[in-house]
C-alpha cells in the first residue's frame, strides 16, 4: 500500500514536500485512515498529526484525505481510496502549517469567538432554569452538534481568501445556533455584527462545507437563515 504524506518541519525544511511510504496493511479489514497514520508513526516517529478520541467526537484529526477534507478516525480506507491505489494525506488547506499535518487554527477560532458562541440573556435568571418548549429546542438540532473540526471552513474558498474577515461556515453555523435559541435575547446585537459585506455575505453558496462536514450538518442552510433574518431586520 502506497501512502504519500505532506511533510514540513519549519526548523529543518526550507519548504514542504510529499514523502512516500510503503505499508503492509492487514488483510480482510477496512482500517480507518487514522489507523494507517498510527502504523506510519511506528515506521517514522517524526511524523506529526493531531488525534484524540479516535471516534469522530473531538474533531482533532481533520485533514485532507485524497483531496477531500474529513476526520481520519471515521474515514474508512475503502471510502478514502474509492478505487484508487494510493492514499494522499495533506493538512487542512488554507491555514498555516505548524508541522506536517498539524495546522495553526488561530484564525478559525478567532472567527468562532467573534460570533459570541454563548447564551446571552439580560433578564433576571429564574429560580431553577430557563425553560424551552420541545418545539423551540428542536430548532437547535443540526446546529449544536458541530465539533469545530474546521473541515468545512478550510474547504471554503471564501474563507481561504478572507479568513480574517469572513466568519466561515463553522462560525456562522454557531452564530445561527444562538440566533435560533429562544432563550437568547441578544438577536439584534448579534445581527448588527453580521450585516457588513464580509462576515456573512462572502458566502457564495457553493456548499463545499455541506459536502465535507463529517457530522452531516448544513452550514449553507444556516447561513441562508441568517441572511433572511438580516433582510427582515433591515427592510
Amino acid at each position: 500500500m502506497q501512502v504519500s504524506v505532506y511533510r514540513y518541519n519549519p526548523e529543518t525544511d526550507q519548504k514542504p514536500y510529499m514523502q512516500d511510504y510503503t505499508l503492509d496493511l492487514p488483510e480482510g479489514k477496512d482500517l480507518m485512515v487514522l489507523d494507517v497514520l498510527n502504523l506510519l508513526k511506528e515506521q517514522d516517529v517524526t511524523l506529526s498529526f493531531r488525534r484524540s478520541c479516535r471516534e469522530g467526537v473531538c474533531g482533532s484529526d481533520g485533514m485532507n484525505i485524497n483531496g477531500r477534507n474529513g476526520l481520519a478516525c471515521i474515514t474508512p480506507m475503502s471510502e478514502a481510496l474509492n478505487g484508487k491505489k494510493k492514499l494522499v494525506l495533506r493538512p487542512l488547506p488554507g491555514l498555516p502549517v505548524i508541522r506536517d499535518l498539524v495546522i495553526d487554527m488561530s484564525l478559525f477560532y478567532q472567527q468562532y469567538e467573534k460570533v459570541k458562541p454563548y447564551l446571552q440573556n439580560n433578564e433576571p435568571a429564574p429560580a431553577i432554569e430557563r425553560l424551552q418548549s420541545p418545539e423551540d429546542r428542536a430548532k437547535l438540532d443540526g446546529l449544536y452538534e458541530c465539533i469545530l473540526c474546521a473541515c468545512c471552513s478550510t474547504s471554503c474558498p471564501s474563507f481561504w481568501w478572507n479568513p480574517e474577515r469572513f466568519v466561515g461556515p463553522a462560525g456562522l453555523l454557531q452564530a445561527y445556533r444562538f440566533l435560533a435559541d429562544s432563550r437568547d435575547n441578544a438577536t439584534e446585537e448579534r445581527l448588527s455584527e453580521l450585516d457588513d459585506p464580509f462576515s456573512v455575505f462572502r458566502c457564495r453558496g457553493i456548499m463545499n462545507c455541506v459536502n465535507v462536514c463529517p457530522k452531516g450538518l448544513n452550514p449553507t442552510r444556516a447561513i441562508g437563515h441568517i441572511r433572511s433574518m438580516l433582510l427582515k431586520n433591515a427592510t
Partner: protein
Amino acid sequence: MVKNITSFTGNGVADWLVQRVSAVILAAYTLFLVVWFLALPEWSYEAWSGLFAQGWMKIFTVLAVLSFVAHAWIGIWTATTDYLKSNTAVRILVQLAVILVLFIYLIVTFDAVWGV
C-alpha cells in the same frame, strides 16, 4: 464588524439585495429583447430604432443599464477583494479602472437612448 468603503453600499444586506434585484431586471430585459427579435417578421434598422424611440423602452433600457452597473460593481468588487489582496495600490487602481469603464457604459447608454 468589518468595515469597507469601496463596496457598493457599504452594507452586506443592501449589496446582496441590489445584486438579486438587478439580476432579475437584467434577466427580464434580456428575455424581452430575445423574444422581441424572434417575434419580428423582418429585422430592420427602422424596427430597432422604432422600439427604442418609445418612452417605456428608454426607461426599461436605462433601468437595465443602471442594474448592470450596480450588479457588475458588486461582483467585480467581490472578485478584487478576493484575489487582489497583497497589493493595495493594484487593488484600488483596478477598482478605479472598473468604475471608469462602468461610468462610460452608463453615459454612452444615456446618450444612445436619448439620441434616438
